[in-house]
């Protein structure tokens, strides 16, 4: 059997970190091959080596059985390797067509020639059902369409080894379904597809073979149809992972948080339109929606990071509509912010200072205006212990040098340890690995057990479905549905999220 791509004994070292340790993979033509691993496992490094971004310390690469030297992306392009990056590399103010031909333009006497490109692209669009308007501006099309532009870019350059880096992170369930169809189409054509992901269900749905990396080492390569999702997860994390979140029966308490007719206008449109809802003690209310449908603005308004035009917000009976951010915290609000590096932390402060960010002024941490470093240090020790926050230098570690997962654990710990009735958690597991996600989910459920009210905002459908007791779906700034996760399917939720379906929303 002849392999399309072979990487043999690849080792790549960054300083003291061994990102790839003697990794070997082999991929057949027409195969969809998945690379599975947690953040930092080395899967992106491995693909970057194939793509010519890094030079390995040791190892060889074979394409079509021939040994090749890939020094830069130019070489990989010539070998027919294309890559769709997690963060698209598109010029927002250019049209789809201009973006696709960028860097491979046809010119005649210095003038751009579009005709041939358009003909070729129309053919590709038809063959692979990659519907997109060539003359639309990138900023006017959806994220799913932007991804198709990236795919067309590869195809336009005649690539037959296609690397997808976390391609489904930004898509709706329907779009994910379409993408899977497209990938299957490529595979039938004989193209080779490498899928970098940490989402096990997708691998199960689309991939033939799967290599699992952990801490730079190849743990194993399995035939996807032979293994269960649980087995793959165990290979990835190195221990058993609990997938079924064990939720205790709901113990609904009194109503604690109430939002009435909230409106935010901006950029000439309604960002948030007449939103009303309540959160009770002991329940997790999930807000689902595709990125950019007003969730960020809604939360910023509720937490005080952004002003809003009308509406009323009450927490524990107190009207906090016009309260300062500090007064909101004092009224019992905790907030795990969407952007943990921008808002949740002062990255250049050490960990212990970050763990008292909202209550450094309270008498336990200061005396006559002087910080009580002993108390601050002790507080850090307690939280580090309780929430398993790992860092190089303990309380004195500069937060910027900590891993994303541990930064998030620190925020979670700080927000949970502070006196509060309501926890607003926005994308609490974004960018984290399976182990950290599992931990954060379990902690959110502990909060629920303790009778706190929890408002969870997430772009991950699974997360919203598994954790929430009620789901509110946002679309274009409105709540378009209130769903019971036990009586809803992922597909149904997706229809609400994409605006195709609207439901009755009961207030109060």
């Amino acid at each position, binding site marked *: 059997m002849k392999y399309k791509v072979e990487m043999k004994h690849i080792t790549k070292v960054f300083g003291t970190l061994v990102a790839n340790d003697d990794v070997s993979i082999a991929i057949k033509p027409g195969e969809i091959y998945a690379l599975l691993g947690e953040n930092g496992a080395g899967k992106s490094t491995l693909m970057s080596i194939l793509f*010519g*971004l890094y030079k390995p310390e040791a190892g060889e690469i074979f394409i079509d059985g021939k040994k090749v030297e890939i020094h*830069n*992306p*130019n070489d990989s*392009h010539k070998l027919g390797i*294309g*890559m769709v990056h997690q963060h698209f*590399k598109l010029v927002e103010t250019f049209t789809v067509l201009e973006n696709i031909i*960028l*860097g491979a333009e046809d010119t005649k006497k210095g003038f751009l020639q579009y005709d041939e490109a358009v003909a070729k692209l129309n053919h590709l669009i038809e063959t692979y059902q990659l519907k997109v308007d060539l003359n639309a501006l990138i900023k006017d099309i959806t994220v799913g369409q932007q991804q198709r532009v990236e795919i067309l*870019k590869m195809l336009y*350059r005649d690539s037959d080894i296609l690397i997808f880096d976390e391609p489904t992170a930004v898509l709706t369930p329907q779009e994910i379904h379409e993408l899977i169809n497209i990938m299957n189409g490529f595979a039938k054509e004989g193209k080779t597809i490498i899928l970098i992901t940490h989402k096990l269900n997708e691998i199960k749905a689309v991939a033939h073979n799967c290599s699992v990396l952990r801490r730079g080492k190849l743990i194993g390569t399995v035939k996807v149809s032979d293994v269960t999702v649980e087995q793959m997860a165990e290979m990835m994390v190195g221990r058993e992972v609990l997938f079924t979140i064990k939720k205790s029966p709901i113990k609904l308490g009194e109503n604690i948080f109430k939002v009435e007719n909230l409106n935010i206008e901006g950029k000439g449109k309604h960002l948030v339109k007449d939103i009303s809802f309540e959160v009770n003690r002991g329940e997790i209310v999930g807000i689902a929606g595709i990125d950019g449908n007003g969730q960020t603005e809604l939360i910023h308004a509720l*937490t005080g*990071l952004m002003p809003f035009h009308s509406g009323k917000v009450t927490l524990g009976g107190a009207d906090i509509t016009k309260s*300062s*951010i*500090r007064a*909101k*915290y004092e009224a019992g609000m905790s*907030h795990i*912010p969407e952007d943990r590096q*921008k*808002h*949740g*932390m*002062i*990255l*250049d*402060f050490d960990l212990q*200072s970050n763990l008292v*960010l*909202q209550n*450094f*002024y309270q008498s336990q941490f*200061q005396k006559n*205006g*002087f*910080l009580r470093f002993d108390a601050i240090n002790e507080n850090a020790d307690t939280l580090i212990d309780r929430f398993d926050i790992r860092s190089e230098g303990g309380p004195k570690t500069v937060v910027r040098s900590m891993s994303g997962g541990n930064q998030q654990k620190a925020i979670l710990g700080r927000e949970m340890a502070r006196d509060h009735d309501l926890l607003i958690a926005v994308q609490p597991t974004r960018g984290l690995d399976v182990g950290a996600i599992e931990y954060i989910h379990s902690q959110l459920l502990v909060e629920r057990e303790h009778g706190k009210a929890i408002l969870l905002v997430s772009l991950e459908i699974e997360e919203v479905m598994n954790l929430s007791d009620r789901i509110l779906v946002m679309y274009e700034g409105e709540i378009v549905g209130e769903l019971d996760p036990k009586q809803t399917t992922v597909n149904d939720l997706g229809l609400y999220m994409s605006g195709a379906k609207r439901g009755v929303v009961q207030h109060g």
Partner: protein
Amino acid sequence: MVRTKKILSGFYNTIKPSLIAVAFGLLAGLIIMLIFNPGEAFQALFTLLIGGFNGGLTGIGNMLYQAAPIILTGLAVAFAFKTGLFNIGASGQMMMGAYVAIHIGVRMELPGGLHWIVAMILGMLAGGIWGLIPGLLKAISNVNEVIVSIMMNYIAGHWLIYLIRTNVFNGSYSRSLNILPSAQLPMLTSIFPGSTANIGILIAIGVAIIAHIIVHKTTLGYQLRASGFSMDGSKYAGMNTKANIITAMTISGLFAGLAGALAYLVVGKTIGTAFNIFPEGFDGISVALLGLGEPLGALFAGLFLSNIRMGGFYMQIYGFVPQIIDMIIAVIIYITAVSIALQAALRIYGDRFKAWFKNRKLKEDV
């Protein structure tokens, strides 16, 4: 022993950028000296470095007298910088401080022990008010403090002339009147005979220590540093970021105002009525940069700067004319400051540039 060694190496790593910068500055100065007097350039450089110590205790005393105001303007710039603000208006704040101190020193009659204290404190407050204004404008309507504070240097420059002419004018010399002896800062001539050394340097050292404590030990400093590192983060934390801006600019102005008072509460020291923006305010930027934005760093940087200024004076024996010496010192300060800024930029933008470069290559080639 091991512990001491560790602390020392930590200290060395902290001040390394400053040492590199100074080395670059001196190298640039040496090149100019080699151009003008190749034969004695190295002796001249040595003299420059020895600075005030060339003149024994008198020289040291004069060096300390000159150091006080630039330490304080350095503290002013460094303190604002900790809150993420660039106070380029230390000159204007210092001018207002100097004027008020002179006014009180000339026009008020108070007992000796009290007069200079009142003059000094009111001068300091005047600087604080001059710093408060750009702080308010920034906090309320987000007007850039750099532009406001630099423009306020010019307002201060012209207003100063008007105030001197109307209130404390010495017509025969076209400058401000001499302050009363009771308003003069207590001198340290018993330690540094024949010099102008006064307790100004002790006050400057004290203020540097107080600034260090405020920045690193108090809840106020905690908030100001948080705002300086991340406005978004401190807003999320529930801090009043607007109040932080106003407080930081006011304290910064207080330091600069104090610099003005200390520099002019000396009998015989007057302000002329030609338009002139005090250069000490801009020295403060160099001092703050060289001191790596730390109050204690500004203390040492101010002493260093003052010392090579004195060294310039003694360099004349090697046949360098004063203008050339001024140029050499300006080059040393300039290159030093630029080198610090460059090193900082390299640290911050170096990685970003690498990432950008990688992405760019990627885009071109894909």
